[in-house]
């Protein structure tokens, strides 16, 4: 196994780069990161549309959400890879295909997370904001979303983790991400499939594990701030003095 890693680690990490296209683990990370980065604002916008008082915004987005949610990601990849070129007129490359598929898929799932987060904030918060004269948009931005985003964190991480793993579907259309490279290595070596796929699994696990730990750390940090623990109150060291007079 040591031999295997020594021989192939550069190939596994970056594919044929710089002689050929970038690939391997770096491509996997790049794809996942780009997909999440692009899906975030889309998810937020779709989520807000889902709870919008304007039916013209709410309805089409609701349809889109139900549609995308009801199709396997693999099929979405196929649709984009095989159908999109007939519309745009030129071939969609593998990376763009996977990126678009992941962004659409994640955008819709994030939208549902955003919606649930918004609806999880007590109704009185929205009423209080509106009663002060804040518009719907300002109430969302200043009062509801800051609270909703905190409660959404665990679900967001869940979605991020599943996106990292979903990049492996790129294998199907020949995108040279980590899974594809691993299977290339496997067909060159032939005799050590267990070792090859063990390394691949470990790689995915490590990426997801680090992300989960980071989120856990964020959550802990957040919880410390939310708890009514007067001693930690920023800027008001005397806040613990119970004064109900």
């Amino acid at each position, binding site marked *: 196994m040591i031999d295997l890693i020594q021989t192939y680690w550069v190939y596994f990490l970056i594919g044929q780069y710089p002689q050929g296209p970038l690939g391997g683990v770096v491509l996997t990370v790049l794809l996942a990161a780009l997909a999440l980065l692009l899906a975030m604002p889309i998810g937020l916008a779709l989520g807000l549309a889902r709870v919008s008082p304007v039916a013209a915004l709410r309805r089409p987005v609701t349809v889109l959400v139900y549609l995308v949610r009801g199709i396997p990601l693999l099929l979405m990849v196929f649709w984009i890879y095989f159908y999109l070129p007939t519309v745009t007129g030129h071939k969609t490359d593998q990376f763009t295909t996977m990126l678009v598929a992941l962004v659409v898929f994640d955008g819709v799932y994030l939208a549902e997370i955003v919606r649930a987060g918004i609806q999880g904030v*007590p109704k*009185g*918060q929205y*009423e*209080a*904001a*509106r*009663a*002060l*004269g*804040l*518009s719907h948009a*300002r109430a969302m931005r*200043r*009062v509801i979303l*800051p*609270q909703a985003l*905190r409660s959404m964190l665990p679900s967001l991480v869940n979605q991020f983790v599943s996106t990292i793993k979903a990049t492996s579907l790129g294998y199907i259309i020949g995108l040279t991400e980590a899974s594809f490279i691993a299977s290339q290595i496997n067909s060159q070596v032939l005799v050590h499939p267990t070792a090859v796929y063990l390394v691949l699994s470990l790689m995915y696990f490590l990426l997801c594990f680090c992300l989960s730990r980071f989120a856990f750390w964020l959550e802990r940090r957040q919880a410390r701030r*939310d*708890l*009514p623990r*007067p001693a930690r*109150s*920023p*800027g*008001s060291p*005397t*806040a*613990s003095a*119970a*004064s*109900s*007079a």
Partner: protein
Amino acid sequence: MIQFDKVNKWYGDYHALVDIDETIAKGEVVVVCGPSGSGKSTLIRTINRLEAIDSGTIAFEGEDIHRRGVDLNRLRSRIGFVFQQFNLFPHLTVLQNCTLAPIEVGGARPAQAHEKAMALLDRVGLAHKANAWPAELSGGQQQRVAIARALAMAPPLMLFDEPTSALDPEMVGEVLLVMQGLARDGMTIVVVTHEMGFARDVAHRVLFMDQGRILERAEPHEFFNHPQHPRARQFLADIRTPFARPA
């Protein structure tokens, strides 16, 4: 200042407000009381359009506020509203709770809004908590902050929807004192409350509601000593001797 004219509201088949006609003058302190489900919270929430109405009109300073095309946000910034559950924003400090509307809606400069908010917090006796988080305050303190927050836009009218009902008994007094202070300064106030002591000592008028109707309107002295309507008599008897009611 507020005129209800033939106001009706339904929740499905349930007639929540029935032909409400009422006028509340500038500077008046009006207590709305009645058994639960009588429509008093619904009534007060129609004044800043937290609840829609189905027919009739409500005018605030001469303007029909349930008409389409009313500048709702401007209207609401001119009506302070205090909720039973305080509804402070937990992610903002006490001071930020009080500066949010002036900065976001009123277009005030932060420094100016801070100064004003500190003055209001001082008025409700909580200037020393300006940088605390709402979760660090007692219920009574939270409600006093909520009052300061509602006052931040300098509204000419304050509405209180059962402001002391969610409080432990020992914290009721501090909130009522702040409200009494407002009344003394000439603020127009409508309060839905079960605090009959407050009604007796501070209110100019009491409205008694039952089943969506205003059954009795009277000065507090009259209302407590000579209630006219049988339902009002029953209500007063019930709240005075809650254990003495025959089964």
